[in-house]
Each structure stands twice: as C-alpha cells, then as structure tokens.
C-alpha cells in the first residue's frame, strides 16, 4: 500500500469516525443513534485495518476484525435489544438543545486540537496527525453523557468515549498490549451489559428512562 493511498484512506476513515460522533449529537431518535454508533464502530475497524495494512501485521488485522465484531456487531445488537422493549424511542428535549450541542462540539474539537499539540510534535507521522480526532470523539462522548436525558443515550455516550480512546490508542502506538486490549474490551462489554440491565430495571420501576427524574437521592 503506497503512502499516499495509506494517508488518504486513513483520513477518510478518521473523517467518517468523527462525522459519526457529530451525527450522534445531531439526531434525537434512539434507533438512528444506535445505527450511527454501529457506523462509527465500522469506521474504527477501518482505521485499524488501514494501519494494519500499512504495517503489514497480521495481529493488527485480527484485532480489526475483533473490533468490527464487538463495536459494530455485538454492542449495537445489545442496544437494539434494550431499545425494543422501550416505549417512545425519541430522545425528549435534551438538557442542551441541538444547536448549542453542535456549537459545543466545535469548541471541543478546537480544544482537542490545542491539547494534542505536543502529542503530534513528539512523533510526527500520518497516524499521529489524526490523534486529535480521537480526542475530539472522547470529548463529544463525554458531552453526550452530560447532556442527554435518555438512559440509552448515556450508554451510547459512554461507548463514544471508549471508541475515541481506542482510536487514540491505535493512532498513537498501534494499540496497547494485547492482554490489556482484551481486558478493556471485556470490561466495556460487561459495563454495557450492566447498564442495559439497569436501564430495563429503571424502566420497570420509574416508568420511563428519563434520568432527570432520578433525583430522590440528594442532600
């Protein structure tokens, strides 16, 4: 794979990765959000595949397939299963309206670029140049966690953060050691399982999963 093709493919994948995060912020229907999240999993797998191709390492290729299976297949499936039982599939009015959220995303992108300055200067390579994308997705994920009311959109927010970190990991050092990567993925999977179970329990006891009503425990 020639360098220019590698750079173009990598930028294409990172672009798609970032676009998916912004789309999660933009759309309000939960079903669409889950589909966009699956797309982002795909884009992430593409990033890893491109790097694997560039470095010609079979282990990275296998990891790309693993990520594809987990983040594009299993997790979206779990979310859809939780969504199926849910009542109105629409995100009620989020704490910060959509326009402000998008502006926020822009600001977060600038912050991510400013912060990842030293990262890029440490080892300037096409992959590290794309690191700010990873950081932006982390910050957008955190923003989704903070502003969306529905339980499931908070889970998607958490998964966005995790996708962003995994992307950063692969873009900087072609991934953390295999043992750690496995552990992290397992933890994320368990976390989503727990959150999904809790979400269904909340729907049974509180009627709907609007998290803003969960304010009985206060000082």
């Amino acid at each position: 794979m020639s360098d220019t093709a590698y750079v173009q493919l990598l930028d294409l994948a990172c672009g798609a990765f970032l676009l998916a995060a912004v789309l999660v912020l933009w759309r309000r229907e939960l079903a669409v959000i889950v589909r966009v999240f699956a797309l982002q999993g795909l884009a992430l797998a593409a990033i890893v595949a491109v790097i694997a191709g560039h470095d010609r390492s079979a282990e990275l290729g296998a990891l790309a397939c693993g990520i594809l299976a987990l983040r594009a297949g299993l997790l979206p499936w779990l979310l859809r299963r939780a969504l199926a039982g849910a009542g109105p599939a629409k995100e009620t009015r989020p704490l910060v309206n959509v326009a402000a959220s998008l502006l926020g995303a822009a600001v977060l992108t600038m912050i991510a670029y400013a912060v990842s300055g030293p990262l890029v200067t440490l080892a300037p390579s096409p992959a590290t140049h794309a690191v700010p994308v990873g950081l932006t997705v982390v910050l957008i994920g955190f923003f989704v966690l903070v502003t969306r009311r529905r339980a499931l959109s908070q889970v998607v927010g958490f998964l966005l953060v995790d996708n962003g970190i995994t992307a950063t990991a692969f873009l900087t050092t072609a991934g953390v050691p295999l043992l750690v990567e496995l552990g992290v993925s397992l933890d994320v999977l368990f976390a989503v399982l727990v959150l999904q179970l809790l979400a269904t329990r909340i729907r049974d006891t509180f009627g709907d999963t609007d998290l803003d009503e969960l304010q009985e425990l206060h000082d």
Partner: protein
Amino acid sequence: MSVAAAAMGLAMAVAAVAAVAAVITPASRRQPVVGVATAVAGAAGLVSGVAAMAGSGYSVALPWLLPLSGLAFAIDPLGGLFVAVVGGVAVVTAVYGIGYRGHGLGSRAVQASFPLFIGAMLLVPAAASAGTFLVCWELMSLASLVLVVTEHRHQPRVAQAGLWYAVMSQLGLVAILIGLLVFAAHAPDDGFGSLRAAAEQLPPAARGVVFGATLAGFAAKAGIVPLHAWLPRAHPEAPSHVSALMSAAMVSLGGYGIVRVGFDLLGDPGRWWWLLVLALGAGSAVYGILQAAVHTDLKRLLAYSTTENMGLVLVGIGAAGMFASAGARVLAGLALAAALLHVINHAAFKALLFLAAGSVLRATGTRDLDALGGLRSGMPVTTALFGIGALAASALPPGTAFVSEWLLLQSLVHGLPAAGTATAVTMPVAVAAVALTAGLAVATFVKAFGVGFLAKARSPAAAAATESPPTMLAGMAAAAAACAGLALLPALLLPAVGHAVAAADAGAADPAVRSAVSLRLVGVAGSLSPLLLATALLAAAAAVLITVRLVARRAGRVAPLWDCGGGPLTARMEYTATSFAEPLQRVFDDVLRPELDVDVSHHAESRYLVAAVEYRRRVPDPIEQRLYRPVLAAVAWWGSAGRRLAPGSVHRYLGYGFYGVTALLVVLAVTR
C-alpha cells in the same frame, strides 16, 4: 531516676490502674475505688511538681510511642509549677468525687475518663516536643469532653454545652497546631530543644504567625475574651468536681502555653505582641467579672470569674513580657511571679468554690441564686467553706487572691519609669482595669455568698437542704486549707515561683526576699506581711469583744425583724441576686445590653387596678451576640447553600467532571 521522674511515673501508673479499675469494679464500689486511686495519682503528681520546682528535672524520650513523631518528656521548674497545681487540684476533686452521687456519674465511661483526664493534664506541662504536647492536649480535651456530657440524659442543655466545648477546643487545637508546626518547619525536628535553637533565625513573619496562632489557641483554652464563649456554657453543665478540675487546673494550662511559647521557646516575640496579651487580659478581666456580677446561676457566675482571673494572669504575663523586652528584668520577674502565684491561688479558691457549688447543687437540686438562700441553717459547713472561698476570691486582705493581686499591682505600679511611652499609657489603664475588676469581684462574691447562703430560704428545696456527705466535705476542707495556707504564708512558695520564673528566663532569679513571715520586694520598695495583718486583725477583734463584754452587761433577747407594722416579713420580700445586681447592671447597661421585659396584667374591671406584674431579665453575652451569632449564621448559610452542590441529578454530577476535565486540559494546553 530523679524524684520528679519517679513520682510522675507513679502518677501515670496509678492513673492507668484507676482507669482500668473504673471499667472492672462493679457499680456499687466503683466511685470510692476510682476516687482513692485518682487521689493517689494526684498526690504523686503534686510531689513530682514540687520536686521539679525544687530543681530535680528529668528528660525521657519514647520514640517507639506515637508513630511518625515519638514522645519526649522533660520537666523544668516552670512545668513543675503547673504539674503541682494540677496534682493538688486533682487530689481535692478526687476525694470530693468519692461521695458525689450525680446523675450518670457512676457510669464506666465517666469514671474511666476522670483519671485519664488528670493523667493527660499532668503530662501537658511535661511535654518536650510539639507532637507530644499536641497529643496530651487532645487527650485532655477528649477526656474532659466525655466528662462534660456526663449528665446528658437529664438535661438537653448538656448536649449543647458539649458541642460548644468540643468545637471550641478543636478550634484552639488547630490554632496551636498551626503555630507549633510553622515553628517546627524552621527547625530540624519538632523537639523543644531544637525549636529553641531555631528561634533566633526565625523570619519575623513566621515569628508573628507562631506567636499569634499559639496565643489564639491558648487564650481559647484560658477562656480569654473573645474566645471565652465555651467556658460559661461547659462548666455549669459539667459535674461540679469536673468543672472544679477544669476551672482550676485545665484553664491555667492556657497560661502555661503562652509563657512556654512566648518566653521560653520563642525568646521575645516583640513588644506589641505583649501589649496585645496585656490588653486581652485586662479586657477579659473586666468583661468576665462584669458578666459574673449580673448572672444569677451560681456555677455560671464562677465560670465567668474564671475568665476574670485568667485575664488577670494574662495581665501579669503581658506586663512581664513588656518589661523583659524593654530590658527591666527585675520587674519582668516580679510581674511573672505575680501571674504564676495568681495561677496557684486561683486554682485553690476556684476549686473550693466549685466544690461548694456542687455541694449546694446536690442538696437543693438548683443552681439559681434567686431560689437559694438560708443554706446556713441546713448546710453550716458548706456555708463556712464557701465563705472562705468567697473571701479568697474577692481579693480582700486575709484572703488568698489579695496577695497575688497586691504583687501584680506592685509590678504594674513600679513599671512606669521602666519602659517607654507605650507602657506609660498602658500601666495606669491596666491598674484601673485590675482595680475595677477587684471592686466588681467584691460585689460579685458578696452577692454569691450573702444572697445564696444567708437570710431566709426562698424555695422549699433550699429550706430542705441537708449537709453533704463527709468525703465531699473533706475535699472542700482540703481546698480551704490550701486557700488559708496560701493566704497567710505565701513567702514559703515564692522561692519555688522564682525558680519557675528563672526557668522561663524572663526575669531575675528571685523576685522577692522573704523572711518567714513577710515578703520584701528585691530592687523595688514594697513589703507586705499577710500573717502580721491577720494577727493584728484578730487581736483588734478580740479587744473589741472584750470591751463590749465589759461595758454592755445586760442579757440579749431574740426579737422579730422590723416589718414597718405591715405584717410578718416573708422570704419573697428578700433581695435576690437579680435585684442585688440591678444597680450594677444599670450602671453598665450599655456594655451588658440586658434584655428586660415587664408586662403588667390589669384587672378585667378597670385598667387602673393591676393584677400582676411580671419582670423578666436576661443578660445575653454581648460578645456572643455580635461575634458568634454572625459567624454561626454564616456557617449555617454555607451549609444550606452547600446542599445545592448535590441536587441528585446525574447530569449535574457528570457536568462537574466534564467541565473540570476540559478546564484542566485547556490549562495544560495554555501553560505548556
């Protein structure tokens, strides 16, 4: 193994045994066993203190105790004096405690913390490192807190008093901790030896912080205005022998702290600091006795009188500091000797007064002077002993406090030519403050004794009062003997006080030449012989009695009191404490700001016929109104505002994290 070390070791061992015994022995025999054991511990402490004052010191280090800092003890005559005071008061209160059956006093926790309290207090003056001092100080606070809340089941006010006491003593501890640790930061380790060595090159700012913080902490413990609010709340609610122990011994350790840090460790913090100490002392003296003069609760009156006496001690210490920094070492020695002698005298008569108040409380169940009266018939011994205590406290000649106040006045009076204009202005004002305090003290204790004990009983409880059990009377008698001894033969004590003054390297070795009977001041013309005065008084009284017996030979008879023909006088017509103090309160009403409300209820038929007049008077503590109320209101507002920090919304909690992290990242990016 010097005498002092052996005695202190014995005291600690016996205190520990007493604490263990308190937990083990059954309730019936618990109080006598613990009382005797604590008395022995107190006696050992007394011996150790006196030996230390006579010069037999010791220095022992226990690095394996108290992790990270280790314990170190060393005694010098200055520490010895306070150990002796604590020991003496402990003996008296322990003996008294044997027979004192208050509510909840027999419980294991209370009986165990009594010897621990005394043990901790004996160790405070012997501490030789900042860590040790703070440990013993905190143990003292913890044990005394448990003792203060002994009767919490029976009065809701006790829990409130306990809270005030806990918070104020913690405030004092934090101030002392900051002071000592800032000092220890400039020295290799926190031992007092290395602190003394590092004192010279302490930067002036640090020197100010150290003395300021420790002064605040120790003044809080000594009940000095404006940090005195806990004293009139905690002492009345504590069992009487505990409040005697706190008022006589624990409070004077505040004075010890100021002398130890100001003179011994820090060298000389500077004249303006000593002026502040003197001003605080004078202010507290006048304010304390003014409050005591108008209060009708007997133990609260004695608590405010403790603030007054500690104020006088601080006046002595402040004056000594000013003279020492101006170079007049003889006068400094005299002033400090006066302060230390007043600590001892105050310990004696305040212990006696509180124990007598406890005896009255046990017999009548009330502390309100308006409801007492006529106790002389039911409790003759307690009345006599309270009389001796009142005489001692009111600083009149054959009494105890007169000697130390005379010494204090001598040092202030002769201080004028010694130092510059600052002292020239403060000395007369200080003399005036001490004089006004003495005058008001006389009025206060005439009220306490006259209204409380003489005339007719104003309530059925007072009328039915019976004398206290013998052990309580023994405790009080011992305190009264100490008062009398200190009043008539102070000369025996002055050489020891001189050593303490020299140990604090403030003044001349021995401030007063003394023959067996009188004191003649060194380098300053002034002499007083309390013994000669007392014998002259007795001789004159005897002469008068004899002449009266010779001249008036007719037999006397008992007649009813003059009732202006308006029918028999009832007890309700007597002057109560409120009415006795009414003129004083009217003279000082802009300082005291009393709250008076008089509501007159008229007869239904006509407005001109009065059915009943109700007069209520409350004298709130003005400093509490102006200083503590706003602070407490601010803290309460902070508390209610704080609750909005955790409203329960998960988005708010995540928002804290999100904005925190983004802010941190921006800062990192900007400050590369």
